[in-house]
């Protein structure tokens, strides 16, 4: 299977103990479930990366002098910052699909 060589984390979800111990090739259902698991894993990873990015950016913008706790205004700023960042992502996605997106992606 070609995709087994690409992504180590994907492989771990595909080569579960079931496959490792059996001598017969995986059934259709097993492959389907593995693909499904892979997709879920990718989505979870993507989400985590995005949230980390947002936290970094918005911490920089909103928490200039860290105090003993997050003030209300800092929290409000974080909320706005998060929304604006996600909006930025949407604008970038839109600009790409219209303009230079085709070949670069």
């Amino acid at each position, binding site marked *: *299977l*070609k*995709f087994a060589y*690409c*992504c180590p984390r*994907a492989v771990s979800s595909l080569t579960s103990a079931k496959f490792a111990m059996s001598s*017969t*090739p*995986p*059934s*259709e*259902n097993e*492959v*389907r*479930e593995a*693909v*499904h698991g*892979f*997709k*879920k894993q*990718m*989505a979870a*990873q*993507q989400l985590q*990366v*995005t949230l980390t*990015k947002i936290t970094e*950016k*918005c911490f920089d*913008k*909103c928490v200039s002098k860290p105090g003993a706790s997050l003030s209300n205004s800092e929290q409000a*700023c974080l909320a*706005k*910052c998060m*929304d*604006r*960042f996600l*909006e*930025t*992502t949407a*604008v*970038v*996605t*839109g*600009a*790409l699909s219209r*303009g*230079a997106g085709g070949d*670069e*992606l």
Partner: protein
Amino acid sequence: LPVGAFPRSDTSTRAPRPDSPVRTMADFDTPTGSGFMEGAQREIENEQRQAQAKAIILALSEKCFDKCIGTPGAKLSSGEASCVRNCAQRYFESQAYVAKRFMKMLQAQRSEDL
């Protein structure tokens, strides 16, 4: 199993269908083989392409956010939004420019070596 079991554009994460009869890979050698494994392969590759595209979008959003948005407001002003649009397009133009110029540099280097 219909070939459309793994449509390329389908990115939903719905659960696999339990209704179809379980077959082993030995069955796929027949001429009427459904291309099931090829379909699974394509789906995985599609996911990877999408992940790469999303990574690019995220990185670009980061850069343009830094460049275009100062203090986050209640919504993106039209100035901020057009700044972000320009930012994305100028980035790809920069990428093309750098690549093109680099090729020229390589060619100049090669003709010097001759």
